């Protein structure tokens, strides 16, 4: 039954986040700061991970279909499908739940335990809006990060399969272009936007409502990761059922 309490309080938090706005000149600065911390600060790890994952996906596919009767462009096609539909949006989001999510929970949690949030409230500032709104806005740029992951994932697949001799450059590129459905891209970006919202808000919730001291900030980050990644997986399942099945 506790779960309903948390869900209710989570949605109340979202409601407060979009009420009683902080001065725009102040919010603007906060948003730029969050873009720097959450988006630009994640480019490195996202690029690195997606490139290697793309490579692994291509090699795995090649090894699984070592049958001369199957067309040569299958590796490129399979790599594109797995990277765009699943690895770039979902796997990267779970990695981000660890990176960005624990950063958000621990920074808000620290502000909670050191009474910085109370200090905001005493001054009459809506701390939900002040702290969470800029995070949500900056994560509107999250689809760019995922687009980058798609490109680099496919590039990684290309390099791995061509240089390891599993596929020719021509076959791979033909595979990438094969049977391209715009709807798949729409599906991916719908997921991505939902994941971005989850990445901004669930870790904020765990930071905001934590109790205790420095030790509990660490625990809250752990719990926050478990919840954020689980919710991402659940949303992934539901959206896939609704849109693709």
């Amino acid at each position, binding site marked *: 039954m506790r779960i309903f309490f948390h869900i209710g309080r989570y949605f109340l938090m979202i409601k407060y986040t979009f009420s*009683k706005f902080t001065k725009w000149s102040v919010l603007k600065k906060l948003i730029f700061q969050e873009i720097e911390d959450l988006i630009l600060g994640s480019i490195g790890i996202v690029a690195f991970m997606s490139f290697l994952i793309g490579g692994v996906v291509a090699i795995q596919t090649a090894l699984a279909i070592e049958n001369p009767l199957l067309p040569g462009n299958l590796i490129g096609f399979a790599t594109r499908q797995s990277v765009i539909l699943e690895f770039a949006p979902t796997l990267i989001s779970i990695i981000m739940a660890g990176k960005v999510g624990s950063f958000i929970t621990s920074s808000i949690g620290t502000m909670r335990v050191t009474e910085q949030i109370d200090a905001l409230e005493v*001054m*009459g*500032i809506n701390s939900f809006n002040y702290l969470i709104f800029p995070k949500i806005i900056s994560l509107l740029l999250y689809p760019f990060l995922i687009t980058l992951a798609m490109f680099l994932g496919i590039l990684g697949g290309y390099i791995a399969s061509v240089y390891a001799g599993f596929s020719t450059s021509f076959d791979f590129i033909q595979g990438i272009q094969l049977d391209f459905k715009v709807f798949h891209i729409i599906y991916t970006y719908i997921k991505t936007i939902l994941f971005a919202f989850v990445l901004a808000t669930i870790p904020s919730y765990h930071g905001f409502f934590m109790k205790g001291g420095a030790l509990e900030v660490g625990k809250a980050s752990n719990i926050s990761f478990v919840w954020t990644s689980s919710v991402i997986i659940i949303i992934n399942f539901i959206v896939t059922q609704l849109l693709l099945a």
Partner: protein
Amino acid sequence: MIEINKISKSFDNHKIIEDISATFDKGKTNLIIGQSGSGKTVLMKCLLGLHEVDKGDILYDGKEFNKDEISEVSDLRKQMGMVFQGSALFDSMSVLDNIIFPLRMFSNMSQSKMIERAREVIHRVDLKDVDNKFPSEISGGMKKRVAIARAIVLNPKYLFCDEPNSGLDPKTAIIIDKLIQEITVEYDITTIINTHDMNSVMEIGDKIIFLVEGKKIWEGNNEEILNTDDKLINDFVYSSELFKKVKLSQKK
């Protein structure tokens, strides 16, 4: 002047504050004293509206502090300053930005005017060469001063300090206490201070409220507190060897 009328607060059916009534005077340092865990912080947070009271009234200069009327509460909030137990400075901002923060939020001053005003209060709390330092780079005593500077930068009518001198050496503690008292008199502020430090009580106890387990059991000033017969107060006051000795020497 702040009046509270029979306020109570519980957490999870556990009564923390029970039926407390009191008046806190303008231009005076009003102390709330009591052992650790007696409910001082909770009482102060109720006064500030950070905790909603279960029942009772809180009046700021006769006006009811009612959580429902948001615009009025925000107006009132601009007249309140608070120094938290752990200073609660924003660690992501420099000292100067911490002090400017309330101005940036609530005034229409230009950047140079804001800096000018911040410098004024920095000077008032005797800070030097800290403008561009971050909270993690300054000492505990300096943090308290920055917190006081931030709390008074908007010229508040009401100042709240939660154990402003805890964690400081006795000398610095008294300097901070005196600073708060001077500011209180100078700007005619209604100041409320939580403390369990007997030195503070003696130095700046214009008016004292004594809490035991969430109940007010005594009120008076720093002269009366030495001469009362109340057993609980005597236990508190004379828990320190120093004060016991002072008491004995007075009797002789």
